[in-house]
């Protein structure tokens, strides 16, 4: 597992914040199939935490166990200091949840659902404010069956937040949202975190995890394969960047002693120089020195998506 404990960015929760979720050796089987294989991780108070993985990685099962909606077959879990298996009903009043593949009765109106869920909490958010925040005001009297996919998602997130939860689980949050709604949703999720609510974001969308999350756990085939900040997980690749340019006549031997170079190769007229550190500056300087400044010098930095693809290609442990 690539476990990375990089220093968090300023303003983000640090390692001293108390854990609100602790998972140790969690296991879950459905019949003969093991879907969660002894995973461990923790989520700290105030963090925007991502559980990232492909479909079928075991993410949803894990968060359902955290909410007490499913039982575990092994390991231990505490959420806000409570065991979800023992105190599930109490816990679910303290946390908010937006579930993947959930629904409301077809004829239940938006306003009715917000009112019902607000009634479960002693000091719910003002409904008009919540509806405004999630662009639901004009849909107040519309039945759930008449909402689009994006409108349903927004309603579910509003329902998750109606009770002013300390911790909120958002499972495949931006599924079915158009790009504009997706950006809006990201902004609001950041605002939710900024108000002190801990957010656990479950997603298969690498870009979403990279843009939103303070820290990420990557799951693959029921195991945790990486844990750290997005930048630390990317750096665990070794920080290799690829510098590319077109020069069909360059002798590649002229680049062999460029500082930080790992390897150099050619794809037709295109030269690829792979290395770490300020490799772009060194390659540029050498090419100028050789009197062959290229017109198309480009650098490709590894992304979380590159690292994610690498991680899920490796056999899980």
């Amino acid at each position: 597992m690539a476990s990375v404990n990089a220093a968090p960015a300023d303003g983000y929760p640090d390692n001293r914040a108390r854990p609100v979720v602790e998972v140790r050796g969690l296991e879950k089987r459905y019949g003969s199939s093991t879907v969660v294989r002894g995973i461990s991780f923790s989520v700290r108070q105030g963090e925007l935490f991502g559980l990232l993985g492909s479909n079928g990685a075991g993410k949803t099962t894990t968060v359902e166990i955290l909410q007490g909606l499913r039982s575990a077959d092994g390991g231990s879990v505490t959420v806000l200091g409570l065991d979800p298996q023992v105190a599930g009903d109490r816990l679910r009043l303290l946390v908010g949840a937006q579930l993947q593949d959930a629904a409301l009765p077809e004829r239940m109106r938006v306003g009715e659902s917000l009112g019902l869920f607000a009634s479960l909490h002693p000091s719910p958010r003002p409904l008009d404010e919540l509806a405004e925040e999630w662009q639901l005001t004009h849909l107040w009297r519309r039945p759930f069956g008449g909402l689009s996919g994006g409108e349903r998602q927004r309603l579910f997130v509003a329902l998750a937040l109606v009770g002013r939860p300390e911790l909120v689980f958002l499972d495949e949050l931006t599924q079915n949202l158009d790009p504009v709604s997706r950006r809006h949703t990201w902004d609001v999720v950041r605002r939710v975190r900024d108000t002190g609510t801990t957010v656990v974001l479950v997603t298969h969308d690498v870009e979403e995890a990279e843009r939103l999350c303070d820290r990420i756990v990557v799951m693959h085939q029921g195991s945790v394969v990486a844990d750290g900040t997005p930048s630390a997980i990317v750096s665990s690749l070794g920080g290799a960047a690829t510098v590319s340019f077109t020069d069909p006549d360059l002798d590649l031997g002229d680049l062999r002693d460029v500082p930080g170079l790992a390897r150099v190769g050619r794809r037709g007229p295109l030269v690829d120089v792979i290395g770490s550190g300020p490799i772009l500056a060194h390659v540029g300087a050498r090419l100028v020195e050789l009197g062959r400044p290229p017109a198309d010098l480009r650098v490709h930095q590894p992304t979380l998506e590159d690292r994610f693809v690498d991680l899920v290609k490796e056999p899980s442990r």
Partner: protein
Amino acid sequence: MSAVPVTLTDTHHVPPNSARTAVRLALLELRLLAREPAVAVSLIGFPAVTVLVLAGVFGQSPDPEFGGAVPSEHYIVGYLGVVLAALGLITLPVRIATYRELGVTRRFRASGLSAPVMVASEIILGAVLGTVSAAVVLAAGAAVYGISMPEDPLAVFAWFLAGLACFIAIGGALGSLLPNGRAAGAIGNLLFVPIFLLGGGGPPRDVMTSAMASIADVLPLSHIIGGLRHSWLGTTDDPHALWWPVLVAAVALLFAVRTARRRAA
């Protein structure tokens, strides 16, 4: 799993009043059902029309084939049980299985609606729907054919309550067992028709074959309808042991709870 408590900063979260929440949810569900035209047909139209047709077939004079009862009264009173059977075999299982299939149950649970609150809400809903259907049957039958006052109103009430408990529990058991709303509808109809015909909604027991009568004797609906007729009309010797539908209710409730827990595991 063991839990090591850490600081719970939250002091304003007090569990809501469960009874009030169950009533609120049941009232909301009733409002949703009122928006569903099919429900009005199945709850009001079907029982009213069926009882009017059947009660009119056999006439208005006391008949030895009906234990000396007026046939129209025999059917009108018996239909108080039939509407409960329809509720428990079709309406409730379809609702419960559909909610689970679509993820409504999961959504409610995740939001803090506890399983006991949801069960209580279903019981309230079932009781209201069963009572409304029964009232419609009585009102329609009495308006068209007339009906005498019950001989023992308290016993009628007790039998009706036993019938409600029995079929609400059966509805919960079927709803928790069957995989989706379509299966619940199909199985429910398959069960309802023979139970309805043999359990007191069809021919009188005296004209049944011995095999049919033997099956009828173990159906809780036979006992509920027998008890209702005995306490209202005082004219039937059909089996009517109150403990039987109560026992079926207890077993069905236990089964429903176990099945729901297994599904949630």
